[in-house]
């Protein structure tokens, strides 16, 4: 993998909803092999930003290049082919609830049903890597939140992507499970030669990332290594780091 190769390039990306500017000119470059955390307060445009990277949303203006290809010019078959190289893990896993886990994964890999023995083996292996055994026949409703997230990652990986997008993969999980998912993302990025962008609120394991990008009011407020973020004297960064790392106080009326 050429570590200097630009995998994602965003140039002056703008997006409005109902006249409210959500992305107000994002310029960002992600290189091959990087593990990037995208942080910021709720509603600052993190999820909107990564949905632009696989064209689930289209920008009002600005350019998006994925491995040198201008995404704005891609439609139809070419867009479908590009998307198959980008794995995405959604906030609530977004597993197809009318299909078994194995069927979910076969669909992602574009394998017709019934799958061959070799394909079934590949599904088994992908689940095994996530620490999941013998769950291919189960339906998503039978899984816990953490298991659903792992299946969603496995489902994205059977597509053999070169770029992974994670939308809050640890939200709603208890701290040990959240830490395990972050470790898994880190391990996959290294083992599978992936480039990953992770939207997260979890700063407890921020050191695992190569780079942190912080959004604020639709703009990039910080872009640098985790250590620099944690030692920053910028008021809004300090406040965000403190509130994201500290337990939320609960007021009890006596």
């Amino acid at each position, binding site marked *: 993998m050429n570590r200097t190769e630009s995998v994602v390039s965003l140039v002056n990306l703008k997006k*409005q*909803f*109902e*006249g409210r500017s959500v992305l107000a000119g994002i310029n960002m470059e992600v290189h091959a092999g990087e593990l990037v955390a995208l942080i910021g307060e709720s509603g600052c445009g993190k999820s909107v930003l990564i*949905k632009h990277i*696989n*064209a*689930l*949303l*289209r920008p009002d203006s600005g350019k998006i290049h994925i491995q040198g290809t201008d995404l704005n010019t891609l*439609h139809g078959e070419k*867009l*479908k*082919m590009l*998307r*198959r190289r*980008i794995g*995405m893990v*959604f*906030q*609530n896993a*977004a*597993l*197809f*609830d*009318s299909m078994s886990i194995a069927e979910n994964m076969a*669909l*992602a890999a*574009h394998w*017709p*049903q019934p799958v061959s023995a070799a394909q079934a083996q590949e599904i088994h292996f992908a689940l095994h890597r996530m620490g999941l055994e013998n769950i291919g026949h189960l339906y998503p409703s039978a899984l816990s939140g953490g298991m659903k997230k792992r299946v969603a990652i496995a489902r994205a990986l059977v*597509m053999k992507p070169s770029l992974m997008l994670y939308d809050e993969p640890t939200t709603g999980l208890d701290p040990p499970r959240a830490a395990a998912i972050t470790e898994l993302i880190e391990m996959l990025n290294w083992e599978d030669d992936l480039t990953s962008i992770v939207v997260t609120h979890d700063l407890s394991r921020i050191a695992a990332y190569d780079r942190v990008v912080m959004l604020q009011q639709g703009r990039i407020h910080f872009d640098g290594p985790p250590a620099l973020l944690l030692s920053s004297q910028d008021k809004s960064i300090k406040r965000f780091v403190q509130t994201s790392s500290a337990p939320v106080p609960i007021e009890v009326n006596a």
Partner: protein
Amino acid sequence: MPLAKTSTGHSIPQNPPGVLEKARHFLLFFWKTLKSARDTDTYGPLWLDQAIQIGVHSLPLILYISAFTGMVLSLQAVNQLFQTVPHYLTGTTVSKLALQEFSSVITGLVLSGRIGASMAAELGSMKVTEQVDALESMGYTQEAYLVMPRILAGMTTLPVLAVFSAMTAIAAGWITAVAMTGMSSYEFFKGVRLMAETKDFLLPLVKSLLFGLAITLIACFQGLSAEKGARGVGQAATQAAVFSCVAILTLDFIVGWVML
């Protein structure tokens, strides 16, 4: 009105759209669906499941309602006509109305409630839980994977269901007429054959094809436009059923007007 554009170019209204705006979205949706007809590899293997869902599972209800419709038609024909016109016209009345009108309309209305609403709810639920986005992110289009199989299934099963409906209604009408008046089966079927024409078969075929298209297209559009969680899904299901019924009765008149 501010709009958010999805990958497939659909405009998602951020405020409740007006009638014209909604009509524009609907036409755009229809156009995108037509364009996805080339993607046979995606929807080809899926339509049979949908056809079974629509056809086989709806058959008992269609047969039950058609039987009672045939009985009521026969009852009315006997009461209104028996004293003044030849008895065999009971068979003519029942068969003409069952074939040209009630078979396709009853099938369409039953499917609007049963299939239209559940289809919209299923797709709406997929939309609000990001399953539709997940599908698109895997390199499928919602039109080819979700809409086309349902439309094809609707357009192929509705004519078949309409045939079953017409046969059941005529059979039930015949039994009722014979049981109520003592008229012979020969007389009843003489009336059925007497004024039979190509239109009796062509009209329900055209109607049921159009009804199948309308029900599934409206259901898919409503479902995939659902927003705002469970409430939005409920609204989509209700609107799919209501708009399908309105579309069926409107199309019924237009097709009848053109073809009769």
